[in-house]
């Protein structure tokens, strides 16, 4: 059986990856929108995005819109593949434990 991806499996990171994967390829979410969707605090969200970025699962782009800084987070191709594998693993766990009973 495939292993669980510990980077993605953490609850908040799972929510971040789920949100980004629900978007079209190469589309991202602004930090504020991601914060609202996941219900995370600024610090917590920032730390987990950094973890995902270090793993190469998301890319972070900072830009200025007018005078306001805007951070956009996008799932990378590697991140999308890892997320798809993780979901498949979760489904496999459910299917396997269901057939054991």
């Amino acid at each position, binding site marked *: 059986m495939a292993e669980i991806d510990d980077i993605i*499996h953490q609850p908040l990171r799972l929510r971040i990856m*789920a*949100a980004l994967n629900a978007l*079209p390829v190469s589309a991202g979410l602004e930090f504020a929108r991601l914060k609202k969707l996941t219900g995370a605090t600024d610090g917590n969200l920032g730390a987990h995005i950094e973890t995902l970025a270090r793993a190469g699962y998301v890319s972070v782009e900072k830009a200025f819109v007018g005078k306001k800084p805007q951070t956009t987070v996008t799932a990378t191709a590697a991140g999308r593949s890892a997320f798809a594998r993780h979901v498949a693993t979760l*489904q496999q766990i459910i299917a396997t434990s269901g057939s054991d009973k």
Partner: protein
Amino acid sequence: MIDRSEASAALADIDDMVRRVRQSRIYDLASQMMVMWGALVFVGYLVTYLVPRHATIGWVAVYAIGIAGWAWLSIANRPRSGVRTFDLKIFLAFAMFLAFGIFCCWLGHFGPRQISAFWPIYFMTVYAIAGLWLGYAFVAIGLVVIALTLAGFLWLGSAFDLWMAFVNGGGLVLGGLWMRRS
């Protein structure tokens, strides 16, 4: 290794996020549409109130600009949102919806005041029904605009079209801005 219940909880969490993102994208696009239509409808009612003899041409212009703006917003947002809100089928559905509204006005021999009340109620009824699938904010905005339209129709005199400029036009703009924040 995680067990079955943890895996189920994780998948449920993923489904919940996908649903939230989908609703957020719909609200984002809908808010832009509502602000645009609100501004146009505001102008349409203002023209109807101030220069009633030009009301028909004013409303034709409102719908022409509105449909063009709708197509533009849909195309401009498509790569980012992935939501398709304008194509030939949607356009034809909208055209049939308008045609049925015109037929109702003709069949009922509606006067200008009835027409001013009918269209927002007709639009907002469909809007509220769509909200049962798209998000309850649509239902709330639709029902509030219908209630205020009926109140103006029943109790306001010659200022009804001015009232509608603020209720329907202003209501859509405020509803759109509120939706953007939610």
